[in-house]
């Protein structure tokens, strides 16, 4: 997925909204900027399929050599797929954060709140201010 086509939360998660057989599905991960800030990752906890997620609320956590950080869902809906092997190959996140590094797929309720998220240009501006 191209970073330019994604939507972004202030807390550094991205979502790609696609149409799958008439329903809207959001694929969620964390951004390259976030991964760089976290430094080396050592552990990750992802939710199970069927879990209801809410925009801005925690859906998992990621631990680096520096700290444990919460993962916040950028959208509302229900988890329909989990990249369950990702915690075993965390290096994938660094090499392909917007592809193989996806975390969960969410069946969105309505647009799942995606319209409230930032586009790529706005997110880049936020990163420049933080970095």
């Amino acid at each position, binding site marked *: 997925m191209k970073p330019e086509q994604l939507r972004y939360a202030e807390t550094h998660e991205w979502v790609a909204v696609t149409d799958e057989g008439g329903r809207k599905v959001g694929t969620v991960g964390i951004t390259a900027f976030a991964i760089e*800030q976290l430094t*080396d990752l*050592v552990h990750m906890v992802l939710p199970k399929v069927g879990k209801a997620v809410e925009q801005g609320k925690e859906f998992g956590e990621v*631990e680096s*050599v*520096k*700290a*444990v950080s919460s993962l916040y869902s950028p959208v509302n809906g229900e988890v329909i797929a989990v990249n369950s092997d990702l915690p075993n190959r*965390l290096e994938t996140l660094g090499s392909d954060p917007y592809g193989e590094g996806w975390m969960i797929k969410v069946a969105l309720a309505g647009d799942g709140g995606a319209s409230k998220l930032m586009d790529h240009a706005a997110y880049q501006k936020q990163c420049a201010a933080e*970095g």
Partner: protein
Amino acid sequence: MRNLKTSTLLFELSKPARRAATLPACDVPVERIDKLLPKDSLSERLPPLPEVSEPEVVRHFTNLSTLNMSVDTHFYPLGSCTMKYNSKRNERMAALPGIADLHPHQPDETIQGMLELLYELQQILGEISGLPAVSLQPAAGAHGELAALMVAAAYFRDKKLLRTKVLAPDSAHGTNPASAKMAGFEFVTVKSNAAGFVDMEDLQSKLDDQIAVFMITNPSTLGIFDKQVSQIAQLVHKMGGLIYLDGANMNAILGITRPGDFGADMMHYNPHKTFSGPHGGGGPGAGPICVTDILGPYLPAPVVEKVEDKFRLAYDRAQSIGRVRSFFGNVGVLVRAWCYIRTHGPEGLKAVAENAVLNANYLLSRVKHILPVPQGDRCMHEFVASAAAIKKKTSVSAMDLAKRLLDYGFHAPTVYFPLTVPEAMMIEPTETESKETMDAFAEILFRITEESPELLHEAPHSTIISRPDEVRAARQPMMRWKGDGNVR
């Protein structure tokens, strides 16, 4: 010269049948172990313990101890940890036989002296905090947080109020959210603003009738006093919530202001920080908590009570959350805290805080010319410098600088905390350091920033182990010796 076998494991030194002591032949009848114990209690193999002589064991541990950096050997500006000098007087007092040889099962009437000391410590901690009800039981600061949140939960249950949320700013210690979750609350982060204070707008938007406790570290982990604290307390109290003060940074305000006076309902002390108890070493700690009179009945039992001129351990406390620690907590470190407080007296404790703040501001005034301090020119007991600019320019990170300081005989500051400052270096000199020591530290820090990035990326160069593989250590930790020559 360094003994080159220092890092050899005792398992690797082991030779079959080598012993530290030789016992005389057994002069009582010998029974086979499988006749004495049921089969399912017996292991098929002997434990793979190392077989070594006494001098080998002594040299092993003595040499290992010389690799350590401690406050007795090095300047130790580890921010947030308050690594002040641990006075040897306190050790001497805590080792007195009348204190060290007491048994926790002794009847109260035979330990009146100790109970009096603990009672007095309860009174003193209550006075310093402005929160009169005290429990000395918790065994560490984080344990104190948990115990206090359990006290809060018991209070709300008693009042039949459903309260589900604990709030704390994003600059809080990681123990705050952990304690909140362990006590059964939902944890909500409140943003801090660019100056490092609580973002009042964000706080207001998260305040509702579900709030149980707002946890605040004041002075904060950025080494600044949030002057909004009374206003925050008013807002939280209006919603029926309580204020918890994380007392990690009490060293800056001893005798100057009291948490109970600026709105806190509960707090913990870290006696190993504020009252100079020894840190770490696996030794027992303490995290006494102080609360308002209203919350007092819920404190852990027992507490020390004075009845006429006698002291007793009071267990008969119907609303208490019960025991949070065996016996009476870790009394040894409490004795040291009492000694420290009584040695200084009220004026002395105030001077401790004043000098801690003065020292930190002096060091800030020197370090800011080397690394910027985003929160400004004035601090409390510590400050947070940022290596972000130097990293951008030369690729030298806070970690590189910290590691290189070890080569020059300084313990490193805390790095990468708080998370709100990029490439953070958190520096806390404490009141026990001289101007000369702080000058030497600042000069070395400056010299390091002039060194070549390649040299710094590989530092430290003088320690027995340079840079452990932290990622692999966390992902695939090797926890024990397996007896077949491998650690797994």
